[in-house]
């Protein structure tokens, strides 16, 4: 199980936080697909590079391996100003 947190619009559409069972050695990209399979209406969003993934306060790419002890954070498209 890995703890997954969502921010912005995704927190409202999915949940602020949920646990997801991921196979050992799974990558961020595989986690995106897993969550998309549970929320097909958000599949396009979850596959988009505008939705960024953050682990340990660092933005990571889709090939980044998931350590189940560290929460994975999904950022809806960000916008300041």
């Amino acid at each position: 199980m890995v703890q997954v947190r969502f921010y912005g619009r995704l927190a409202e559409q999915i949940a602020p936080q949920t646990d997801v069972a991921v196979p050992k050695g799974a990558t961020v990209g595989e986690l995106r697909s897993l969550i998309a399979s549970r929320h097909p209406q958000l599949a396009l969003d979850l596959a988009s590079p505008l939705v960024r993934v953050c682990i340990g306060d660092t933005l990571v790419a889709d090939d980044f391996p998931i350590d189940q002890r560290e929460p994975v954070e999904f950022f809806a498209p960000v916008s300041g100003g």
Partner: protein
Amino acid sequence: MPVYVRLEDQPLVPQRELAELIAQAAGDGAVVSFVGLARGTAKDGETVDQLVLEHHPVMTVQSMEQIGSDALARFGVTHSWIVHRCGSVDSGEPIVFAAASSPHRRAAFEAADFMMDQLKTDAVFWKREQGPNGSNWIEPTEADRADRAKWDQ
């Protein structure tokens, strides 16, 4: 301090920020500042009462620091200064103050313009407009992305 950023959960007072920057900019010949205000009307014409800005406990300030540092490095300005609201901001109130000081005006103008374009697409905030008919998430527009991309050309 050449790069100053602050996440502000209380009303932002631009004139105080400007006065503080001017006090620190002794020796420079130019200060350019921008103030962004919460609009009272959404794109579809609906009334907006508040803009709500959610943030990340670490990444929001980190993204603001990155933008301030990039402006300093790219334009050679002496100071970059960004103060950004979080939480609920009433329409008409300031959301962001972005400013730069430099020996000559051109670099300060460009740095302020650059910082605002970066803040629109890269600063880690999630914004929603709240009005009488509920709330709507606001994401960067194509125009915002084009403005951001022009700095990469």
